[in-house]
């Protein structure tokens, strides 16, 4: 996911992390097969803001690294 550019969309293939971080990511709706769009990045390029299930979610690049996305 880190490589995605602003306004680029894709579908989540897998979330490869368990424990608290994995739970938070999935609880917020980033589950397998969910479409996401990169809405923007913070001025220092980290964290990233995503559009998912109709709302905006931000997460650190280091957290996004666990999420594999197939881009359109």
């Amino acid at each position, binding site marked *: 996911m880190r490589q995605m550019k602003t306004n680029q969309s894709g579908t989540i293939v897998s979330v490869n992390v368990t424990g*608290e*971080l994995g739970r938070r990511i999935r609880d917020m*709706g980033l*589950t397998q097969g969910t479409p996401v769009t990169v809405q*923007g990045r*913070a001025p*220092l390029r980290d964290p990233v*803001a995503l559009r998912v299930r*109709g709302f*905006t979610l931000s997460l650190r690049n280091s957290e996004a690294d666990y999420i594999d996305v197939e881009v359109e």
Partner: protein
Amino acid sequence: MGKQLEQISIALGGNPNSGKTTLFNSLTGARQHVGNYPGVTVEKKEGFASQNGTNVHIVDLPGTYSLTAYSQDEVVARDFLTESKNEAVVNIVDASNLERNLYLTVQLLELGVPVCLALNMVDVAESRGITIDDKKLSNLMEIPVIPTIARTGKGKEELLNKAIEMAGDAKPSRNFSISYGDDLDEALNEMETIILKSNFLIGSYPARWVGIKYLEKDELVIEKGDKINKAVSSDLIKIVESVSKHLKNTLNTYPEALISDYRYGYISSILKQGVVKRSHEENRLELSDKIDKVVTNRFLGPLIMAAIIYGLYQFVFTYSEAPVVWFENFFGWLNGLASDNMSDGLLKSLVVSGIIDGVGGVLGFVPLIMFMFFGISILEDSGYLARVAFMLDKVFAAFGLHGNSVMAFIVSGGIAGGCAVPGVMASRTLKSPREKLATLLTVPFMNCGAKLPVMALLVGAFFGKNEALMMLLITVIAWGGALLVAKLLRMTVISGPPTPFVMELPPYRLPTMRGLLTHTWERTWQYIKKAGTVILGISIILWAMMTFPGLPESDLAVFENQRNEVMEAASAEAVQELEAAADNDEAELSEAAAAVQDQLFQIDGREAEKALRHSVAGSIGTALEPVSKAAGFDWRTNIALVGGFAAKEVVVSTLGTAYSMGEVDPEETGSLGEALQKSPGWNPLVALSLILFTIFYAPCFVTVVAIAREAGSWKWAGFSMVFNTALAFGVAATVYQIGSATGFLIG
């Protein structure tokens, strides 16, 4: 319809930003009370509403997205739901963001509690082209659904009626369950059989829920299970391990991942059956997103943020000035009243310096705290605070903190002149425990308004040529020190992985005045009630330390003799003139009378100095001199620093007393500065050492009390006193020793 009850209890749960607090305020009005859940710092808000003769007790649960064991908020919420008897749980969901909001609903249903949905913000949803068929949603999920608009109070009557109706229904809540796919369902059935057979944990939880928690590796539930029946618990863990292995091999996934997938799958399948109709594409850019394009823009974003943070700072510290002065004047007046009407002695000193100054000290912070919470509530309720965290997280995360830490730092004096007491309280916006603790422990390093007179005195007296540069340097040292210490703490005593940032950027909303005022008042009242009493107690103890044991009779007689000698030596006219002037402060004195008065002041000053040295604080200062010499501090500085524990500006007034100059007004330090310059024990290096010490040493006790309250334990408050003082001494002594050895700044 069941029977109508006189009193029922309901719990209010929902996601953050779903309008939960607004609904709670609307339901309960002013009839609410804020406390804490036992043993944790999580706030517990309760209130009452009456509807058709039924008294409804409402508990506002912490806003959460889920019910895991990973955060205090979530644990508190689920414990409350399972341990307390609630006739109904009102689950408020944001209609414009239904999919994710229902994720919590599914977990509530699995917990087996009677849920009633408050479908909130239907107006916002409509304005975005989203219409929700609430009847269909109700039929499909088999729970009551009431559309509401919490801001206007629309739907709250129906909601209360429904809750009361549910409470009256004797019918037990149904067994809700969703499928988690063949593999997990099979494992769950197997676990359910074991759980039911051995009566395992089902006093408090549904059997299937326990199974799901074991699959999710919920530490708290497993720990509880181990305690109750180790054998059954191990059997369950074995089933989990076997199905985990199977999932890893076949689908390359984990049970907890599948569980979330299926929960969202269940929600999507319901919403797709005609519950949600959209006139626009789902991820269409709303007004809020357009604002974000500007406000979090790479170049404009930081500028706007700087302006807003500076504005907040100005708002807190400029607008609170007038009320602070009213408080000061009021307590000054009270002080005068007591001084004039009480005879000299210990009781007067206790009332004036101990109690009135103490209460004044407690209440003096109130305007600051009110303005700070009001300002931060605006940022928080509007949604901007989340953007601040978003933009600054990169910087703060590098030091083991969180983007939201910035507010606490700024308010504490990140812009010189703040105050660590509201600053420490500002850390309440931080939800991540380790980051919050690191923030709490480092914000006292900032240059609060009370440290400024100390800095101004020392810089003015010893670095007069480079005043501006020195003040800038002090700010930089405070920030640098705070961030480095935060990093150090996060690597040692508060070590642990960063709390996931994963944060919603909620749509911008106009805050409601009622919400802002309620929030501000609650927080301020808590400060007065909880912290106030402790602060008053400590201020009396500090007063006693600076006063007792008092000078022995023989010494008092010596000073009295000196005074008498001066009066006898003076001319009769001068004595008369002074006596006449005693009742009139404005009186102009002749040269002779002024000279006599001056001599008397000097004697008073020497007496006060001697009494201070003789006091408990003085004894401590003197006893510490051999150690403090390493940093260049003599007993006078030591006493002043002990006094600084009451409030940092006391360092200045105590130094004044210690240099026989009487009480020095922290605003007028010129003459004290000159005295220090002339004093043989002082040079710029000593001043620099004291500046560094003042930045880092123990926070004033009001801050310490605030830290204890926010951290939820006195342990961390104690840590901040001991650790900060040790750190300060280490830094000051190192600089002083290197300076002494190299001759730097000794001129």
